[in-house]
């Protein structure tokens, strides 16, 4: 079946920042995004665990969006400006999709 190459950006970001990242993706006119729950993790800023956490701080979520290679930089630059001071990580990887028009 014919598939088409796209890029997937994975953004691990603190819950308090989530809405801002989503707004940014909307402003960039991205076709869509998905938010995944995250249970726990460790990084240079220490370890955290979702269980029992009452407030929104101290926990992270994962936001990923599939988009065309040509649009990656439009997203990465403002995104980096937004999250560079925050806890979290961003990765980019290759994926294939069936309906290129969708993204």
């Amino acid at each position, binding site marked *: 079946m014919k598939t088409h190459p796209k890029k997937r950006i994975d953004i691990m970001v*603190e*819950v*308090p*920042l989530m*809405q*801002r990242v989503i707004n940014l993706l909307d402003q960039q006119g991205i076709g869509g995004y998905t938010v995944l729950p995250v249970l726990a993790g460790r990084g240079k*800023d*220490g*370890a955290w*665990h*979702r*269980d*029992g*956490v*009452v*407030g*929104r*701080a*101290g*926990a992270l979520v994962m936001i990923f969006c599939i988009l065309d290679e040509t649009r990656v930089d439009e997203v990465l630059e403002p995104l980096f400006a937004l999250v560079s*001071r*925050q*806890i979290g990580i961003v990765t980019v990887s290759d994926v294939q999709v069936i309906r290129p028009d969708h993204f």
Partner: protein
Amino acid sequence: MASALDLAVANLVSPMVLFFVLGLVATLARSDLSIPEAIAKAMSLYLMMAIGFKGGASVAQPGLDAKLGLAILAGIILSAAIPLVAFRLLMLTSTLPRVDAAAVAAHYGSISIVTFLAATQALEISGIKFEGYMVAVAAAMETPAIIAALWLARTGESRMDSMTVREVMLNGSIVMLVGSFLIGIATGADGLKVIAAFIIDPFKGILCLFLLDMGIIAGRGLREGRKNLTLPIILFGLYMPLIGGALGALASWLVGLSLGSTALMITLAASASYIAVPAALRLALPEARPAIYLPLSLGVTFPFNLTLGIPLYVAVAAALH
């Protein structure tokens, strides 16, 4: 002060405190005991609903105390003033960078609702009444400390934009607390009767379960915190509540609050936030390290207030009346 001692003991062997200790010990012993996030959130909403509604319903009673306005004003001033003291002390005694000191200070200006709840339980044990509007005071004290701390941090790039302000003011917990308070006022004693079997009867038991969770989180905080909490900071987490509490006592005396409300005002001033402030600071002051302020507030100050602080604050309030 015998009665104070009795209360201190009664408090220490109350199921609430013991379940907190259970969670703390289990976590330090590396048990996998844990409360799912969804349950913790639901219990927190429940506690906000219960305390808010009860407060509102009692305010609705005829003869609303005219001191409400004054008490709220005093709370706001305390919330904004305590961070200034806390900040100076941290800059003097610790090697914390300015931004971290400001962040920690914000937590001590703001309040912890669960500490407030535990105090109301201690008052109940001793049969001391308090005004329902203290819930409104608690809500009013949540955020001023954040503004003060951002000003203290003086970082050019602080992000306290309109969106952040809205998010802080409208964070779920505060909305639930204030909303339930207003609904309590609107529906009064009748409304309370309707849902009493939900928000009053099981209240203490749910508080026990919630404190178990707080113990688990405090234990995690302590384990994580070891790395970042130096002695001066830990000491700060122990004496700052006393300083804040003293200021709270002064304010209560000036406003002329009742014995019970004085104890609660002292508790609020002595308590440190771990919900509203951290979330706000991650947005407005991202350079400040949560690894400092979270373990300090959750692992040091909260346990201190819950076990020793509250009985002391009640005793002080009694001494003032």
